[in-house]
């Protein structure tokens, strides 16, 4: 494909995950030190991911590919996009965590003691996600994806109450079983690549090399492999019907963790899925229909399940299932336009869902309540949160001129261009349902005069350190909507990496 790319040796890919690993270790070493130091050190780690991401973006936009350790790590525009996203959302989630984890009406006593572990795990969580996006080794991709489960497992169960433990157990168990299928898939890719005899020893492990010999793979084994990969990475990405862990984990985790799970972790799994499955696209183009069908099913099932939710965080979690469906439809289509739309929506959803989970966390922080039926009229007490939530709800519903509109429209156009009108119709229907569900939730929680848990005199806007990250994300929703060409060069480069079939 891109045979004449400029390959540049760089340390940025390695630093993107090594610095946060070290930051996590430092946090643990400082456990007897001042509690203020923990978020600062973890923040340095997250900032390193962001800086490395920015460095990768600037390099890859210019057409270069960064490699480290003899091609073991390899960063093209697609990897750069993901690392920058992980770093950006990571920094904001850490800022948000500082106040949201130490105060508020959450009612989880005794957690202060364990905050040290929280920040260490959060750093490692970011590190493992970044690692998964820069590795070029097919087996290490599996190892990194499973490592994100391990580093976040205790974060999901952080509150250590009945709900948290149940969510944590299901999360670790279901994701580990799922990802074992992916290991089988990754091993088969390696075995097939090695069996072609075209690649020397270690090269059969490198995803960038495997792509070149994929047309030599035996058809039967290739399809078995794709099935394993879809079950494995699909479970992690929250694709229906492998999604049941997602609402539990995203709802019960502490707010900054929900932000990362919904904002970037499922995106990183979608990245792993796209990276591996698109290897097979040129040889078996009918896979695209299967991928689009799977994505459409996910999109509808998620939003229908969200309709029945009274718990604000569970509602948002089910909406994440639905939105990852859009990403899968776009990337699964395999065309340039489809990949562009899918990646654009991946970025937009990361931003908007991080925003919405921060807002939900702010509501819980201020009122201690999560059920929509127990809340109402919060808008007057919490104007910033209310504004951000409504803006987020409109963005995710695809309301023009916000960012969700631009990416969804691209996906509709890509579907129509490939002749998949049925999928385009389903996507529009799911979008209308999203509008109904999210806007209804926003009105119920923020509109009117204060009632329920919002009546307490102590209910007021959250601290600046919590709403500032929300404001940044809200601004990004508007900016990417009115000026979508701002990230065109990056998305263009990333979409070219994935686009393998058709126009």
């Amino acid at each position, binding site marked *: 494909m891109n045979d004449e790319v400029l390959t540049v040796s760089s340390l940025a890919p390695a630093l993107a995950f090594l610095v946060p690993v070290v930051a996590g270790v430092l946090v643990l070493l400082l456990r007897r030190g001042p509690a203020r130091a923990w978020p600062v050190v973890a923040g340095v780690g997250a900032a390193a991911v962001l800086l490395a991401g920015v460095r990768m973006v600037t390099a890859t936009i210019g057409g270069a590919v960064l490699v480290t350790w003899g091609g073991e790590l390899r960063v093209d525009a697609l990897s750069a996009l993901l690392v920058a996203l992980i770093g950006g959302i990571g920094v904001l989630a850490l800022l948000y965590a500082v106040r949201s984890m130490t105060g508020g009406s959450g009612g989880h006593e005794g957690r202060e003691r364990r905050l040290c572990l929280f920040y260490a795990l959060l750093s490692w969580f970011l590190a493992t996600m970044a690692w998964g996006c820069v590795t070029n*080794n097919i*087996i*290490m991709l*599996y*190892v990194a994806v*499973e*490592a994100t*489960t*391990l580093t976040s*497992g*205790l974060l999901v*169960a952080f509150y*250590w*109450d*009945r*709900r948290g*433990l*149940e*969510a*944590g*157990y*299901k999360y*670790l*168990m279901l994701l*580990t*079983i799922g990802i*074992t299928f992916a*290991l*089988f898939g990754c*091993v*088969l890719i*390696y*075995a*097939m690549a*090695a*069996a072609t005899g075209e690649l020397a*020893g*270690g090269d059969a*492990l490198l995803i960038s090399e495997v792509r070149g010999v994929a047309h030599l*793979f*035996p058809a*039967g*084994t290739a399809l*078995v492999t794709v099935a394993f990969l879809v079950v494995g990475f699909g479970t992690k990405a929250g694709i229906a019907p492998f999604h049941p862990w997602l*609402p*539990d984990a995203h*709802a*019960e985790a502490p707010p900054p963790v929900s932000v990362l799970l919904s904002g970037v972790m499922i995106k990183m799994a979608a990245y792993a899925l796209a990276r591996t499955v698109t290897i097979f696209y040129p040889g078996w183009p009918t896979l695209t229909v299967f991928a689009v069908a799977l994505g459409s099913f996910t999109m509808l099932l998620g939003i229908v399940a969200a309709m*029945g*939710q009274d718990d604000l965080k*569970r509602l948002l979690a089910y909406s994440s299932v639905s939105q990852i469906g859009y990403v899968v439809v776009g990337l699964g289509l395999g065309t340039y336009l489809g990949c562009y739309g899918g990646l654009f929506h991946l970025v937009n959803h990361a931003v908007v869902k991080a925003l919405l989970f921060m807002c939900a966390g702010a509501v819980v922080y201020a009122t201690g309540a999560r059920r929509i039926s127990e809340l109402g009229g919060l808008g007057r007490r919490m104007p910033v949160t209310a504004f951000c939530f409504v803006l987020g709800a409109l963005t995710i519903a695809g309301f023009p001129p916000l960012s969700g509109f631009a990416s969804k429209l691209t996906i509709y156009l890509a579907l129509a261009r490939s002749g998949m009108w049925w999928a385009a119709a389903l996507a529009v229907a799911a979008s209308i349902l999203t509008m109904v569900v999210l806007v209804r939730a926003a009105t119920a929680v923020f509109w009117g005069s204060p009632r329920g848990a919002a009546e307490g005199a102590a209910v007021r806007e959250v601290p600046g350190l919590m709403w500032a990250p929300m404001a940044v994300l809200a601004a990004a929703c508007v900016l990417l909507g009115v000026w979508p060409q701002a990230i065109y060069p990056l998305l263009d480069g990333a979409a070219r990496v994935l686009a393998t079939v058709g126009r």
Partner: protein
Amino acid sequence: MTDDALNVALIETLCMCMVITSVSAVETRRLRLATVAYVVQALLLVGLLLTFATVNPALYGWAVVALLTKAVLTPYFLLRAIGRADVREQQPLIGFAPSVLVAALLMTGFYRLTHVHVELLAPGAMAQQEVFRTNLAVASTVFALGLFCVLTRRDAVKTVIGLCLLENGVHLSLVSLAPELPETALFGVATEVVVTVYLLLYVIGGVREQFGTTDTFSLKELQG
């Protein structure tokens, strides 16, 4: 590489014993005994790796890592979690007789299926030799039995044992599918399983504290 250098009879015996230990680990209701069955399986796996290592020396390292992680650390964590608490697992979803029947069907079904259609799983010419076919057939059988255990058992600790079987199945297949996997990858794959088991049992310890049982059916706080 040919299979002449390999002790085929020994490999086939070890493979059959692996299937038997899988069934024992799944069907034994006493958690300690099930753990013992798992340890025996781990040792058999190490034995198999050593046998294959006579033609592929890279597997010696893999055998050492497997011995440490599967036969020492994992059982240690399991026994510590079982502790002096209820040594019998919670009543599984299906009774003993139907469970054995299903296990037997899985065993013969998966073994036959993989053995006959080995080309679906084994792209290389080497992996289609008889001894590697047996290896793959056993790997997929152990994997299926582990999945069966995870799906039908209510006891959280027992599901962890099922998960270990599942992983053993995949790791066994590496002998035929990825014999030249570098040590770093093998090390990553092996350590990850131990860490998973440790974390799961740690969370299950919390579940026992809060819910007073390790019955996964009592985990009903999150519905809908």
